[in-house]
């Protein structure tokens, strides 16, 4: 998304970029907490990640991100249903971005 910020003035561009960074950081925290809970057993006999844990984490990250995308799409769909102008506004934004 950051790559598509076309002709915005630097001030609002900075705000959007900062927001995006904050959102990424927030997602990272949530993802880490979720995958830790699901993949790392509560006994810590060693400090190394074992094979099973590592594979679990990789899949957990992939699934989390995929779910994130799917929900994003669905949420957009639902927003459109509720408010038909939503897509129009997004399109306007896209036009702004592409030019």
């Amino acid at each position, binding site marked *: 998304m950051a*790559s*598509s910020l076309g002709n915005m003035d630097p001030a609002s561009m900075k705000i959007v970029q900062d927001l995006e960074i904050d959102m990424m950081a927030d997602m*990272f*925290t949530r*993802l*880490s907490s979720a*995958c*830790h809970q699901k*993949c*790392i057993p*509560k*006994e*810590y*006999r*060693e*400090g*190394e*990640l074992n094979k099973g*844990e*590592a594979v679990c*984490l*990789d899949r957990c*990250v*992939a699934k989390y*991100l995929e779910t994130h995308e799917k929900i994003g799409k669905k949420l957009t769909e639902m927003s459109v249903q509720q408010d038909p102008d939503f897509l129009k506004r997004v399109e306007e934004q896209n036009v702004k971005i592409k030019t």
Partner: protein
Amino acid sequence: MANTMTEEQQNEMMKTQINTFKEFLLQYNKITEICFKDCINHFIAREVTKKEESCAVNCLEKYMKMTSRISQRMQEFQMLQNEQALAGAGGVKP
């Protein structure tokens, strides 16, 4: 070099440093919480036992490794997405 920096730049640098420190402290608290919850389960004695301590140390070590693995995988995902977005944009453009 440092003298040529404007006040604004110095402020910006200060902000980033404070932010980094803040992130560190937040992570510190988070790890303490997780490892305390997972490793300290009974209160027969007042002191942290050897077993609990090694559990907590392993917990920290594992947590750090987990974090770096997750961030690596997320970056890979992001790079893939950026490439796809670029390819898509390139295809659409005349």
